[in-house]
Structure formats: C-alpha cells, structure tokens
C-alpha cells in the first residue's frame, strides 16, 4: 500500500487521468481476457503468499516439528516463550537500533552526499556510481567481504591496529562490539540507495524559491535548513520507511558476518526465526516470529501511511 506513494514520489509524471471510458464492451468480450489473464497471478499469489501467511498464524498456536499434522495445541504459549526469550528480545532491540542508526547517521549522510553531487563538477557521475555500488552487491558477498575486513588475524582491522600499535580487536567475536560492526556494514551497504532517493528528491525541488532566498541574502545553511530540508520532507519519510522495512527483513547480511552470534548479540528477528525456528524445526515458534513480524509490518504500512504520508 505504502509503495503506491513510494513509486508516486519517484515517478511523478504518473498522474491519474480522469477515465474517459463511458461505453464498456459487453461482458462476453471481457470474459475471455479475465479468465485467461487473472488466474495465473491469482493462483500463485494465493498459494505461495496468502495461504502460507494464514498457515503461519495457525501453526503459531501449535507445538509442531513439521511432520504429520499439527496436533499439539498450545494456545499462546509460543508467543509467551518468544517474549521471554532473551535472544528474541535482543533481536527486537537490534532491529530498533538499526532504524535509529539509519535515521541518525545514514539519512544525514545520504542528504549530505546528494547535496554535494548536485554541484556541477567533473566526476559527479562516477562518484554516484561508486556510492551506489554496494547496494547492487549481494548481501552475502558484502557480508563475507566485511568479515574479512574485520578478521582479527588477516583483515584490514588487524593490520590497521598493528600499524597504530594497539592489540588486535576481534570485533565480530566481541559480544559488545559485534552489533556496531554489523551496523557499520549496514550503513556501508545501503547509504547509496538512500542517496539516490535524495538525488531524485533534490531534482524535483522548485529552484526559483532557492534563488529568491539567495538574492534576499540567506546563507547556504539557512537556505538548506529552512527551504531545502522542509521541501525534502516527503523524501525523508520515504527514506525512513525503507530503512524500517529493510531492518525488519535483515538476514542475508548478518549470516556471513556473525550468524546472529556471539551469544545472540547480533540476532535480528529474521535471523532469530532462522536459527531457532527453521534449523531446529520448531515450526510453532518460528511461525510465531513470522506472525509478530507480519503484525509489525502491517501496522507500520497502515500507520505510517496514515500519520506521515497523508500529504504526499
């Protein structure tokens, strides 16, 4: 739902035209196309998206190892277990932390870079390409590359530490540091995407307002603070939305880096689902995580649209 506004912001020319269809062709003409064109999508979507989601809600009430039929009904026990599990609570906290870091570091960084790349200087296109590059790389590859960077024996961190003469840190093995190391990789991987959103946002601004302000003697910072930033409001909200959605499904990047460890310090909801639900075949518990994730996603999609994207 929210993506309607998401795509709307980027492709602004897609204004809806008032429909001029007054005379509709007869049902006999419409029926073949409906019977031929709709069922494939409808079937796939129902079988592989809607039904599994419903089943997740159903399975979450059972204790089940995935074989035969779920018979051992346990009511809300899986959810109780979940919210008492320290690893799951860490996962929730980490998901929130990713969003916070995204808002406090990633988005300002993205705006700053987008503003710099709006200058007409040589090499802009190349810089833009380089900054977007991490986003197109597979999460797994990016995760492995950074695992090497952080490696205490061979990595860049090891030799950097050696150079300034401190003891080599094993960041990914340290339960207090690991999550920050992961967060740094998240920013590295995704800032280019957010930068692109802001580049598109800046291009759609009305230049005359800024020129008028400049003639009136507003400083660069004033123009940014009181004109550019408020006008970028919808892009900021869009960017926050993508950060939240990305955080909720973060998995591929964590697995090669830490796999959720050490001592579950870097679990996210999806790695928790995988480590505790899938690998141990605790279908009930895993489905309960899925339901929690689903509720958060849907609440977010509707709530966010209602509260923040009303005017866009």
């Amino acid at each position: 739902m929210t993506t309607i506004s998401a795509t709307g912001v980027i492709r602004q020319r897609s204004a809806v035209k008032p429909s001029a269809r007054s005379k509709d062709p007869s049902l006999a003409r419409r029926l073949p196309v409906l019977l031929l064109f709709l069922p494939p999508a409808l079937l796939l979507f129902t079988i592989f998206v809607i039904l599994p989601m419903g089943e997740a809600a159903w399975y979450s009430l059972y204790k089940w190892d995935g074989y035969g039929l779920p018979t051992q009904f346990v009511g809300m026990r899986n959810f109780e277990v979940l919210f008492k599990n320290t690893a799951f609570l860490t996962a929730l906290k980490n998901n929130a932390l990713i969003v916070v870091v995204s808002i406090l570091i990633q988005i300002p960084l993205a705006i700053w870079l987008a503003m710099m790349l709006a200058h007409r200087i040589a090499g802009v296109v190349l810089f833009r390409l380089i900054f977007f590059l991490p986003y197109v790389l597979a999460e797994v590859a990016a995760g492995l590359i950074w695992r090497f960077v952080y490696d205490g024996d061979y990595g860049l961190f090891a030799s950097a530490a050696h150079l300034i003469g401190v003891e080599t840190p094993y960041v990914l093995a340290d339960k207090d540091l690991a999550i920050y190391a992961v967060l740094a990789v998240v920013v590295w991987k995704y800032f280019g995407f957010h930068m692109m959103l802001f580049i598109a946002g800046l291009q759609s601004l009305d230049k005359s307002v800024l020129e008028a302000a400049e003639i009136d003697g507003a400083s660069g910072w004033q123009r940014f603070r009181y004109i550019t930033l408020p006008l970028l409001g919808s892009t900021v909200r869009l960017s926050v939305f993508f950060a939240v959605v990305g955080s909720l499904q973060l998995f591929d990047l964590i697995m090669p880096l830490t796999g959720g460890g050490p001592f579950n310090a870097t679990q996210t909801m999806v790695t928790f689902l995988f480590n505790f639900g899938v690998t141990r075949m605790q279908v009930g518990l895993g489905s309960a995580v899925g339901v929690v994730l689903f509720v958060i996603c849907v609440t977010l999609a509707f709530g966010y649209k209602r509260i923040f994207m009303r005017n866009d």
Partner: protein
Amino acid sequence: MTDTASTARIATGTKIYLYVSLTLIAAIVLVPLLTTALGGFKDLGDLRTNPFGLPATWHPENYTDILFGDRYWRQMMNSLIIATLTVCLTVSVSAMAAFTFAHVKFFGAGFLLNYFLIGLMFPAATAILPLFIRIRDIGLLNSYWGVVLPQVSFGLGMSILLFRNYFRNLPEELFQAAIVDGCGYIRFFWHISLPLSRPIIATVSIISFVGSWNSYILPLIMLNSETMYPWPLGIMVYRGEFGTAWQLVLAFITLTIMPTIVVFFLAQKHIIAGLTAGAVKS
C-alpha cells in the same frame, strides 16, 4: 548551497572541500572491494602482513584454479537459471494481471488489486516455515521451481503495481479506437500494450533479476544438495570449507561478484532507475 552551482562558478575552496569529502567516502566504499580482489592474488602469509598493498608475489593460480574447476560455473549457472525463470514468469504473469486491472472493468477489481497489494507489506521471511512445508508437500523441495515459484509470488504485488500504472498512462485514445474497431482485449494486449511497454518490462525484469540473483534465504531453505546451489549459497559453503584460507575465499568472492559489477557499470542508468523505482526489498 546546491543551486548557485548551476548559475555561478564554484569557488576553489568549495571545490577542494567537495572533492576531498567525496573521495574519502568513495575510498571507504572501494577499499574493502579492492583489497578483496587483490587479496585473491596473495598467499596467506602475505595477506597477514600486508592486506592493503599489492601482492609481494602474484598468485593468479588462486583465480585460475577456481575458473578451471566446475564448481564456480555450476553455481553461476544455477543462479542464472533460477533468475531467468523468475524474470520470465514474473513479467508474463504480472503483465497479464495488470492489464486486466488497467483496461477491463469487472466486479471486484478494486478489491482484487488490493488483495495483491497485501504482498507489498511483508517479506517472504514472514511465512518461510509454512512455505517450506508447502513446497515440501507438493514435492518441489530441492528443485529450481521450489525457489522460483515463491520468489515470483512475492514479487507479484510490486510488478503488478508497476505494470498497471504504466498501462494506465498509455494514451487512452489508443484503447478506445482499438476496441471500437472490434479489436479484442487479448490482441490489443499482445500487439499494442506490450510493444509499447519496453521500459516497464525492463524495470520489472531488472528488479526481479537482481532480487533473484542475490537472494539467499529462499534457496537456503528450499535447496539441500550442493549441485543445485546458486552462488550466494555456494560462497557460504566455500567459506565453510576453506575456513581461514582467506586468499581462496577472497578470489572466489571476487569472481562471483564480477558479473554483477560488470553488468552494473555497463547498464548503470537502467539499473539505478529500475532499482530506485521499485526497491521495496531494499
């Protein structure tokens, strides 16, 4: 700050500030990638003492051994097959459904479109366990289709939305004229809508191809024999096997991400536009 740029010349001070900052950030992006590629040419001792610089002695055999083995090619092939099937199925199924939403009036159309849009709201991970059980029960476990079908289904919401918006923005007169002249819907779709839709077909293809090429969690759960593994699973296995022989792992990573980087630089305009147009799965 930005807009003086278009009118006035940029002061030298500003220019220095811009280039220094941009180069610094570019270095943070590129150094890990370059050390990975160079690291693949080193031996382990060299890697330990000197991860930044050029190799003391070049070891191209790290790369050539992988290139002459069949493991690398098999994984790339698996990824390519899965991605191609995903793209073809996504484009055809969602273009057809979107066409009915754009041009055919029927009872419940609005409701049905919203039904598909539910798919935009949650990631595949949410339903991964029931999906696994379903794929297992219909006997598609450890087959390409076991990965492709869920992947296509979860991409449908986005693709239908993109196609529908595009179809609606094609000139309405075309459609009116064709229908009045007695052209059927299906012929109109095939001979007029599709040929005019190349840009959106490209966008949807790019989104679903990149998504499939990089995807990890679905194949991880649906495939269980290594000969079926696409490359993201393959490099994880490779790393597990060669443990701390980082030089080999680095060479392997470099070779697997090479196609992505080459294609990205060749088709950057389309890829950036495509991915920012519909990147829900960021």
